């Protein structure tokens, strides 16, 4: 009998996952579980802090998408102050979020996922990463890296630094946009459009050919979808109304009450993971589970509102239906959202108000409880604070995009395991490991961000027999 020494958890947080695959008596896959074995504790240690610090504290949750927490927190702060922020501040925050969506989606597609598509699922794992991509397709790799840099550069020009810029604050933003920075951003837009268009054409070609099976087996199932929509059901990323639809496109909830979100959403917990399972309360934990993120946003909206992105949205719907249910299409949705973001950035830069200097409203504590909602690259993000009369935090609840996709991620890896592990198999091949990883990667979960940039997500897969005993396990660190 073999014996295994387990090192768990690995100390590099935001990147440690464990997967267990459970087999039934016939040796067929019964289910798979995605375990997040890290504990962050933000909701607890924020208690007692001034609410004005929350944007900077919660931005530290992630180094890839600090902007998302910054915006959700600043919006919660706006409501505690009970102010309407200056119009230019809202436009600048939108610009910041669009930059965030661009850079995060570019990272997910080009750096993390495209090596699977372009180099092959079963290619040499040592080269199946961004460096392998640079060697195999330098033009595409360079374009992707520069596209992410474009987003990061925009964030830095607005907030003073690329990562953890505490620029969005309760009441608005700290500094206006310098006209020279506006021109510098504008000058890089043509290249960003060209890279995105090239990637879209390339990826759509693959979907019509070698990736057709993946598109139908990587998390292809009906579920609810949730996201913000703007006026007339337009694609939205910063404000607007929360809409929940089912996979037939029926609207289950329109304009979900954001300030009483805990009445609409609940969070289930499981003993085997620290990641919670939010669900739509009226339908219960299973039927009420929903997906968020790029694909959900494109599913809930009626249209994007910009010409090129709308054309791509139409094509996506021709490919996958009005409501696209395959999680593999998160990748395509990500590319379409980059295009939408670039078009929206162009429009905002042309807005005469974008360089206005009145960008911050000041007030005291005027509300003791508030919820701030924004769309992070990975999906809808909620910050919910309660404060005392002086503005000290009494309670915090954060509903994070990755958590909302938790059940969908579990269903996705179950589907992949069933597809790729034939009944009776007791071996886990490297190819399976990679496909399971890729199933998780469709959702671009936050925990993969920090450690995956070199092409590998630390992963621990266990094959569990019907008696609960472990048949085999593999690690990748």
């Amino acid at each position, binding site marked *: 009998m073999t014996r295994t020494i387990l090192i768990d958890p690995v100390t590099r947080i935001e990147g440690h996952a464990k997967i267990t695959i459970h087999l039934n008596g016939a040796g067929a896959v019964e289910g798979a579980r995605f375990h997040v074995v890290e504990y962050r504790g933000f909701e607890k240690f924020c208690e*007692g*802090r*001034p609410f*004005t*610090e929350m*944007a*900077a*504290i919660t931005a*530290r949750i992630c180094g890839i998408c600090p902007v998302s927490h910054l915006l959700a927190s600043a919006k919660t702060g706006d409501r505690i102050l009970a102010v309407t922020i200056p119009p230019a501040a809202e436009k600048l925050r939108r610009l910041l979020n669009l930059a965030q969506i661009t850079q995060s989606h570019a990272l997910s597609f080009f750096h993390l996922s495209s090596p699977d598509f372009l180099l092959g699922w079963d290619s040499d794992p040592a080269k199946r990463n961004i460096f392998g991509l640079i060697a195999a397709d330098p033009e595409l790799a360079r374009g992707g890296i520069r596209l992410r840099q474009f987003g990061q550069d925009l964030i830095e020009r607005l907030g003073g630094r690329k990562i*953890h810029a*505490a620029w969005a*604050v*309760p009441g608005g933003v*700290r500094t206006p946009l310098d006209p020279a920075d506006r021109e510098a951003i504008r000058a890089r837009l043509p290249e960003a459009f060209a890279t995105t268009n090239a990637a879209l054409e390339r990826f759509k070609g693959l979907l019509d050919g070698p990736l057709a099976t993946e598109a139908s087996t990587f998390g292809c199932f009906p579920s609810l979808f949730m996201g913000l929509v703007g006026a007339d059901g337009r694609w939205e990323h910063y404000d607007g109304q929360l809409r929940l639809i089912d996979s037939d496109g029926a609207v289950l909830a329109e304009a979900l009450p954001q300030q009483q979100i805990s009445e609409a959403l609940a969070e289930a917990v499981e003993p085997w993971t620290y990641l919670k399972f939010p669900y739509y309360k009226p339908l219960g934990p299973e039927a009420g589970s929903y997906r968020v993120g790029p694909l959900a946003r494109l599913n809930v909206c009626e249209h994007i509102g910009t010409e090129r992105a709308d054309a791509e949205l139409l094509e996506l719907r021709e490919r996958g239906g009005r409501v696209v249910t395959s999680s593999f299409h998160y990748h395509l949705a990500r590319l379409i959202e980059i295009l939408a973001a670039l078009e929206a950035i162009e429009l905002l830069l042309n807005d005469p108000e974008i360089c206005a200097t009145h960008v911050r409203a*000041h007030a*005291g504590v005027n509300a003791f409880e508030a919820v701030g909602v924004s769309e992070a690259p990975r999906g809808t993000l909620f910050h919910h604070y309660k404060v005392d009369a*002086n*503005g*000290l935090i009494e309670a915090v609840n954060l509903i994070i995009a990755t958590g909302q996709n938790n059940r969908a991620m579990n269903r996705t890896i179950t589907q992949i395991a069933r597809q790729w592990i034939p009944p009776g198999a007791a071996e886990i091949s490297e190819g399976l490991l990679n496909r399971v990883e890729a199933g998780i990667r469709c959702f671009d979960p936050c925990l993969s961000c920090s450690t995956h940039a070199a092409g590998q997500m630390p992963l621990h897969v266990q094959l569990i027999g019907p008696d609960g005993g472990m048949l085999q396990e593999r690690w990748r660190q």
Partner: protein
Amino acid sequence: MSVRTLTIDGRDVAMATGATLLAAAREVGVSIPTLCHLEGLSPVAACRLCLVEIEGSGKLQPACLTPVAEGMVVHTDTPRLQDYRRTLIEMLFTEGNHVCAVCVANGHCELQDRAVEVGMDHSRLPYRHPDRPVDLTHHLFGLDHNRCILCTRCVRVCDEVEGAHVWDVGWRGEHCRIIAGLNQPWGAVDACTDCGKCVQVCPTGALFDKADTTGEKHADPARLWTLVRARARGQQTP
């Protein structure tokens, strides 16, 4: 006015009787790190960062309080002092909860500057993580005990310059902390004039403007000296 001559780090210096070693060192361009000291306030030697070696004396002496003496030979930057200063800064960091990344004073903090100056790249001492409150009861300003290093600049400026004497030091040992109005919530203290001098002279983010978020506190403690000198000149004018 009689003059005393001495050497500091090998440099000859002549100072008026009664001048401190810190003033003498600055006179000849020798930099001695300080935290509690501030021009315009009485010295208290609370932080111990300015300790120097004086030949013939077994005890280290705080430069901010020690008067110059004839023939003194002073060393301000020996390996022993360097080690003590780094340890002192490490003790300040580990004794409280100094989370620079989210602090209002990040980038404009004297404790941070001193840590860089003494070469503290990490702490060799364990962090205590004490449970300390934040007082936001004042309508303009906040007090975060987590970031307080008990330099007592606020106590002195409120007493000596503003004349309100809102602040004191309460309790002892590890429980020692700054208190307002003999231990009331700051916002309940009638004596406070809302002048903000305590916030301006605070070397860290312990005292801050409530509207400030991370890194937005840009205090200028040196302005106090300008104010004190201007007032002194005003008093001399008939």
